[in-house]
């Protein structure tokens, strides 16, 4: 941790970056994202087991995006997010400096995107066992069983869009869900509107989700919304051998194709 703090301080002192995105002490024993812009504020940076949030989301937020050059405390999911949004032409290597953190909490020197790609090759991207268990359980259910499960799970959703706000890949300045001429997704609290919103989100993240699980953590009602995109992560790996966030120059899954994509259902 001292390494990260020291490095952040150096970067701010030398004006190599204008802002550092990192974790700091919040209230009630929780951590929060902090954005030191002066060298002395780098002291407030922390890193421990509570620092789970995917900070990459801030890189493309309007308020931070225009602050100049950024350094970011980056765990594996953050690095994957960076590569994914870079592959979508939302971020370039010159805009961001990465202060890598290994899963053990050690500082990792990452020079550029190529180094990040190489480092990520050594990392595990697996879906957490707890979530995998639910996915497997759902797999064993009938179609109706799954429909009932999701209606029940999604019914408390009041579309606060915290899942969207917390996702580094949901950076569109105008989201489909706000299209109201015609009203694309019903805004009233009804089951169908909830189903449509969550399916839309999952589809728009197909081949792009890097399974950080931030949407599920951000949900104030603890809806396991991350499972929808996690399933997509497994599916696209199986069908297309696509793993999001592994390269800054990969094609987007749904805006590319292969003439020999294999399906079994078109008559």
């Amino acid at each position: 941790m001292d390494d990260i703090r020291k490095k952040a301080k150096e970067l701010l002192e030398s004006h190599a970056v204008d802002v550092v995105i990192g974790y700091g002490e919040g209230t009630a024993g929780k951590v929060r994202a902090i954005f030191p812009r002066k060298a002395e504020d780098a002291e407030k940076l922390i890193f421990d087991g509570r620092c789970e949030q995917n900070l990459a989301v801030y890189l493309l937020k309007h308020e931070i995006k225009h602050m100049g050059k950024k350094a970011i405390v980056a765990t594996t999911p953050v690095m994957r997010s960076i590569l994914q949004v870079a592959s979508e032409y939302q971020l370039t290597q010159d805009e961001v400096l990465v202060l890598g953190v290994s899963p053990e909490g050690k500082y990792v020197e990452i020079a550029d995107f190529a180094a990040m790609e190489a480092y990520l090759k050594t990392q595990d991207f697996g879906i957490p066992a707890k979530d995998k268990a639910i996915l497997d359980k759902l797999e064993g259910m009938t179609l109706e069983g799954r429909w009932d499960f999701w209606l029940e799970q999604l019914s408390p959703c009041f579309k606060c869009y915290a899942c969207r706000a917390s996702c580094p890949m949901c950076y569109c300045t105008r989201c489909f869900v706000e299209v109201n001429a015609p009203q694309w997704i019903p805004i009233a609290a009804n089951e169908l509107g909830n189903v449509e919103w969550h399916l839309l989100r999952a589809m728009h993240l197909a081949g792009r989700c890097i399974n950080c699980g931030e949407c599920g953590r951000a949900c104030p009602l603890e809806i396991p919304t991350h499972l929808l995109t996690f399933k997509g992560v497994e599916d696209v790996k199986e069908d297309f051998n696509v793993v999001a966030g592994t390269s800054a120059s990969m094609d987007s899954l749904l805006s590319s194709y292969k003439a020999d994509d294999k399906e079994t259902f078109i008559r």
Partner: protein
Amino acid sequence: MADFEPKVVAFVCNWCTYAGADLTGTSRIKYAPNVRIIRFPCTGRIDFMLILKAFGNGADGVIISGCHPNDCHYTSGNFHARRRWMVFKRLLDFTGIDHNRIVWSWVSAAEGAKWAQIVNNTVEEVRQLGPYENYHKAALKPLAKEVNHG
């Protein structure tokens, strides 16, 4: 159930399947009148949400049809669509939406007879499945579950 007539919505591309359906008509081939055809410029234009909208508005089945691979008027629209459907179908399966009610097909402008067959088969299959009440119910129902903010 005996007098259940399925409502089927067909999303078809302008260049192949719509012309194919025209050929079915000019060839005087009769097929089930349960289908409502909606013409799109290309299968690539058919947003996945439109399928859900069809079910939400009372459809019991959906047909999606366009040009065969390599025949797309816009070169690659159907290839993009095919990828999207591959992803979408698995997502529907995962969320428990009855994808057996959705029929995907390639029907060219010369396949008038195939179009009649696709429609007839789909209508029969959906007739067996019955009305899609699960989805229609959800479309009308306000939220049932009370939220505890404790």
